[in-house]
């Protein structure tokens, strides 16, 4: 069912059941979001997306559209409430933007600029950042509490997307912070280090342990398991320095596990085998691909001729893609054997 609503004087038709925030997005009208994330259920805690809906100040991210609703996103009252809220967040936020991994890609910066933070007004604020030491126990990503805006996106991600629920809000009021059971270091929790929270953090509160300045991205498929998640491999020079999930890939829609996201060190490892080796006189000797493939083909022919096709057996790898595994079993069936297995089954 379609509903008619008016946003900032613009008459639009929207589907029943969506929120004012989504309706505004469809109409191309910007409402500043902080704790809202399209992947997650709404929270309604940051109070930045407040709009005037039929004369009432409501959070756009939670308010459902109603037929005939008149929404104003830019009244003086709305501007004032939003401005005060952003000022209040900044009052206890570590504003060392130059030293932040998210400088220039930070949602708080974006929203601050939009609501019109100005330094004259900020002088009235009493700055007070709680000195809590960062949690750098996890080898892949760290948490800087002084940059956390308590939007809860990481918490909802962990619970709703990954189903792990390793983190939650702890303590109360101004002393609230994101923590794990027993307020231990993250590494001592049930966190699986998938890094989904890191990807969604709107500020620099969660940041990579090793900063990565990506030069170019290469689309690929994760080599770890048969799921075959789509990845975007971040490269600098000839080295892989970062892996992101590919949100356009229908397999994983951007999600990755700890191995896929962080387990790429082996690619650049000096001991990694890059060429095939053939054992000669008890010692592995480097060979070309042609030599290696010829060697395997000859051996297979010999065995088949001597003992029949069922004397052959083949084990493929979960690190190959589905397509590669399909071709692999096809070859051996064509050779006349069904002795095909796969490491994921063992």
């Amino acid at each position: 069912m379609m509903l008619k609503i008016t946003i900032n004087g613009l008459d639009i038709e929207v589907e029943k059941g969506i929120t004012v925030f989504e309706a505004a997005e469809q109409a191309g009208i910007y409402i500043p979001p902080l704790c809202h994330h399209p992947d997650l259920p709404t929270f309604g805690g940051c109070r930045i997306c407040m709009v005037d809906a039929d004369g009432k100040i409501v959070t756009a991210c939670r308010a459902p559209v109603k037929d005939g609703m008149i929404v104003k996103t830019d009244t003086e009252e709305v501007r004032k409430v939003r401005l005060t809220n952003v000022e209040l967040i900044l009052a206890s936020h570590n504003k060392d933007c130059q030293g932040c991994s998210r400088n220039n890609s930070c949602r708080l910066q974006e929203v601050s600029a939009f609501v019109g933070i100005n330094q004259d007004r900020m002088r009235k604020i009493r700055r007070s950042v709680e000195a809590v030491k960062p949690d750098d126990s996890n080898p892949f990503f760290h948490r800087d509490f002084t940059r956390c805006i308590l939007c809860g996106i990481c918490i909802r991600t962990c619970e709703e997307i990954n189903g792990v629920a390793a983190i939650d809000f702890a303590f109360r009021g101004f002393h609230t912070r994101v923590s794990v059971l027993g307020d231990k270091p993250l590494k001592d929790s049930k966190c699986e280090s998938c890094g989904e929270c890191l990807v969604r953090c709107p500020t620099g509160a969660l940041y990579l342990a090793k900063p990565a300045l990506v030069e170019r991205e290469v689309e690929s498929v994760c080599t770890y398991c048969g799921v075959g998640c789509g990845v975007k491999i971040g490269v600098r020079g000839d080295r892989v320095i970062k892996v992101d999930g590919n949100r356009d890939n229908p397999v994983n829609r951007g999600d990755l596990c700890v191995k896929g996201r962080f387990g790429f060190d082996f690619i650049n490892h000096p001991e990694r085998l890059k060429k095939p080796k053939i054992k000669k006189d008890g010692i592995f000797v480097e060979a070309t691909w042609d030599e290696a493939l010829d060697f395997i083909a000859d051996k297979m022919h010999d065995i088949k001729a001597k003992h029949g096709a069922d004397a052959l057996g083949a084990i493929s790898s979960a690190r190959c893609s589905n397509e590669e595994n399909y071709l692999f079993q096809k070859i051996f069936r064509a050779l006349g054997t069904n002795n095909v297995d796969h490491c994921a089954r063992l």
Partner: protein
Amino acid sequence: MIQKFDVIEKEALENLEKEQKSDIPQIYVGCATCGNATGAQSVVQTITDKLEKENIKAEIKEVGCIGMCFAEVLLDVIKPGQPRISYHGVTPETAEEIVDSYLVKDDHRPDLALGYFGEGGPADVERIDTGDVFKNQQRVILKNCGIIDPENINEYIAHGGYKGLAEALEMKQEDIISVLKDSGLRGRGGAGFPAGRKWESCLKPQADQKYVICNADEGDPGAFMDRSVLEGDPHSVIEGMTIAGYTIGSSKGYFYVRAEYPLAIKRLRKAIAQAKEKNLLGDDILGTGFNFDLEIFQGAGAFVCGESTALVMSIEGNRGWPKPLPRPRTTEEGLWGKPTLLNNVKTFSVVPQVLSKGADWFKSIGTEGSPGTAVFALTGKINRSGLIEVPMGIELKKIIYEIGGGILDDKKFKAVQTGGPSGGCLPEDKLHLAVDFDTLVKAGSMMGSGGMVVIDESTCMVDVARYFLDFTFEESCGQCVPCRQGTQQMLEILNDICEGRGREGDIEYLLEMGDSIIKGSICGLGQTAPNPVLSTIQYFRDEYEAHIKDHACPALVCKNLIVFHIDEEKCTACGRCRKACPVEAISGEKKVPHTIDQNKCTKCGICFQECPERFSAVVRLTGKENLAAAASGKEG
């Protein structure tokens, strides 16, 4: 009336009659938390031992709080054929004296007595129930508190208890709701939502299970109304909840009581067991086929869990956070997603009387818009602090000057704070205002759940605002930005103002921020948190300005803005202040007027207290000039 109840009632009344006709004296000791804190238990022990040792026949009853907290420990004696005589400030020693002189002999000890209740008391003792404390009160919710033994269900029944339930069980559910609607009863938790409408909206939804919750998470500083009701008359609340269960079609109720109320919890447990034994609770109540069970859930001490949705989250085992709007009403989707009726202790406790005495009776008390009574915990700089119950519409000044007996030490009245940390401060020219839900809100304060703190001239209003804001800052749940960060920011600014770092424009900024916090916060805690600041700015702006512009605290409270100084002409060099000073900041010899070394002085105020009133040589000075003089060492 249900036959089964007639039997129960008859038995209770016979018991009461037997007691009244008995030739054994009755001793009542106020043993609510307030009484116990002042030593009621040791009084009970002393008397019990003494009666046993000397073989004196008398019955001791531990009763709830009658509301005269200023007079604790209260011990009342009813001798056969005599009115109830009340003794105040009783200690184990005076308790023994009372037993010796009044129980054994016949000297009623006017020197120890506060007064008597009823008619025909001794001439040399005042009558209490028609005196200043009680004449303006109308005790409906508190009618049994301090009168009956809360651990004896028969006494409650003999005083008209469970009659409302027995009647309700024979009524149609819709009829009960229309009586409540007719009565105009509004929820006593603070917001004043019409109870009849709430019950109705909980009756309508169809569900396999509904819940009744009693909100006893009383947390306002200085408020103890709900605790006193639970400790003094627990059955009234159980009866009210059972009626609610029958009306909305629920078989399960929860008491959400804060764990800091152990005595209330103990008495509730006992009361629930007694009610079950008498078939007034549990399965097949009074043979009507209606089942209703009650469970006690102890709150862990978060103030915000008094908010209905946070309370529900807390029972469900979640973090006690209010649910942001828009959300389904608790009456439609509450505990475990089922329709839930949530009312305050006092609301439930008055329902049985509304049903048994009728809507017209209830409407005859109070005002048109706010019928019934209001219970207040009257505290602060007042002569008679305590728990009072007044008809709605009574003037504030009647409460303060007649019931409360005026300001302590004959000081000047400055303000009255109502509604706890969500309320505001009203000045002297608002004392003519009538106490009801709507009038106080219009004046910038609110009824709240019933805290009333009286403030005198020696209190700094900026400091008062800071006190309440410190409370909401500590109790903010942390979910939404305006409340979590806003209360902290306002508190920082108030700290600055009180400590001499206030800036031009701070007042305007507080007003602006307060407005945004009210509009932007998720729940009632944040939406009312700025009220103490806004109302003190509204009525006492000059005090804020004095702090900021002149670094002066007119009430001479804010430590950083005052200096202690010895007036040379008045000082007789007695040496008391010098000896008392813990940091040896005072110098002087015999016959040489003393001086204070401002570099050493920690402003503890001991010298000020030590200096005899007839000299009054130690004075407190405030303002930029005095502070500067003290800092440069010229003053001393």
